[in-house]
């Protein structure tokens, strides 16, 4: 491999990090908010609003049922309106973040469902407000599940970002497609794949470590 190719791959790694980290942060923050909303508005919960719950649930289901590659294309006008272009690394953040939100929301809802109901009852008996229950009981008690959700999301985003790369977002996906596939350079293909495997492995190990540390048992 030429040194130019090595530079290209290093740049691509940085682009991939940029894509995954930015869309991960946006997707996880908004996804947690949406997941909490899904949890608390369900019937008999602390902010029961069944009608709103059905609407959020529908949005999440629609968001999750559209394949990422289609979502990316479908969102192109919105992306152009938001960031001025629908091609490029920053533009790819829009569909990546939007794809991550409902994904995270369902995982967060699942993690919150694991918090024993008795804890919420105990907090209510102490006179906690719904907001206090969310911030001091639900989220801290679900911490392990939330970290697992974040880990799964980041790994999914590494895959999605490569897909986005194939249509102009840059990153490892772009290098693999443009040089490894189109110009038939198996070495580039192999190296990019290996880098992605290492990234996924690293994220999973970090996630496992954090989950382990968050468990006090």
């Amino acid at each position, binding site marked *: 491999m030429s040194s130019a190719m090595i530079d290209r791959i290093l740049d691509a790694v940085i682009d991939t990090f940029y894509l995954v980290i930015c869309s991960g942060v946006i997707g996880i923050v908004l996804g947690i908010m949406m997941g909490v909303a899904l949890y608390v508005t369900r019937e008999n919960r602390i902010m029961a609003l069944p009608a709103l719950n059905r609407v959020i649930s529908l949005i999440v289901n629609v968001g999750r049922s559209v394949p990422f590659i289609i979502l990316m294309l479908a969102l192109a006008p919105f992306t152009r309106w938001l960031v001025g272009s629908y091609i490029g690394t920053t533009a790819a953040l829009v569909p990546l973040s939007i794809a991550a939100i409902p994904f995270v929301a369902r995982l967060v809802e699942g993690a919150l469902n694991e918090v024993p109901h008795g*804890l919420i009852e*105990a907090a209510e008996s102490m006179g906690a407000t719904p907001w206090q229950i969310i911030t001091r009981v639900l989220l801290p008690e679900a911490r392990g599940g939330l970290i697992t959700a974040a880990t799964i999301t980041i790994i999914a985003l590494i895959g999605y970002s490569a897909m986005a790369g194939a249509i102009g977002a840059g990153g490892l996906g772009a290098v693999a497609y443009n040089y490894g596939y189109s110009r038939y350079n198996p070495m580039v293909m192999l190296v990019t794949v290996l880098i992605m495997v290492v990234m996924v492995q690293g994220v999973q190990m970090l996630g496992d470590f954090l989950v382990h540390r968050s468990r006090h048992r």
Partner: protein
Amino acid sequence: MIRLENVTRVYGQGAGAVTALKDVNLEVAPGSITGVIGVSGAGKSTLIRCVNLLERPTRGRVFVADQELTALNKEALRKARHGIGMIFQHFNLLESRTVRGNIGLPLELIGTPRRDIDQRIDELLELTGLAERANAYPAALSGGQKQRVAIARALASNPKALLCDEATSALDPQTTSAILTLLRDINQRLGLTILLITHEMEVVRTICDQVALISGGALVETAPVGDFFTRPATEEGRLFLNDFLQLAPSNALLQRLSDGGAGNGVPVVRLTFRGQSLSSELMTHLEQRFGLRLHILQARVENIQGRTLGLMIAEFDGDRDIIDDAMAHLHTLDVQTEVLGHVQRHD
């Protein structure tokens, strides 16, 4: 301190509606301990959850510390709940917080300054004997220690009343007894009013001043514990008590009873002494005055809140009219007698 007025709780509507509580009236005096006892499904849990409105009664009014909780809006109810502690069968501690963190939670909720919280935690750790486990996580604690943390947490905001929802049902007898001692101690030291629900007679007997028996969602009998154990006023009360105090004939005796006395046998009598002791004086008296010989087969004496309850199964050996006289005399002494059957004379 706690007063329930005609509290009714119905689940569901129409034909499928289930009435979990029916017109419950209950008053818990300030500084006293009241136990609501009943079999599972009787409505105990619903009752205690109605006190702090974790469940809202369908009808009726709930007062705690002269404040009608059922008339409060959400915000005022939350404030009122700061003055009512609650502990649970399964402790409900936050696994993500240490013992200190759990105890401090109610104070964080009301915005107490950090320094005051820490000071209060130290006092409570001392009170509940947890000082050495202050920085442990709940997962590392035993059941009894967890319940102590829960008690400390419930006391953090200086409540006037404490609700205990089957607080000892998940604990072994020894730990139960230690937790009950702690509750009694807190009740006496802090003058805290306690309402507890339990299915264990032993809990009521050990620490309660007043007992309320719940059956099918209704309170069937409310009485001071000493009275209830020695003189239950209702049939339900007697049945419940009998299950607890059962002095059942042994298998050997049952065998003899079924063989029967065939005409010339002697009666086997179960005597229940309430409030007075099974004194040897009485035995002597029966022998000397009536010439009746008692063969005591089984006996048991319980002390309940300073009142004695004695149970005895004995053969009454003597002539028929002597036995009748002795029985009549026992009734005048308020000793309850029940002839279980007849057996052949011992010798």
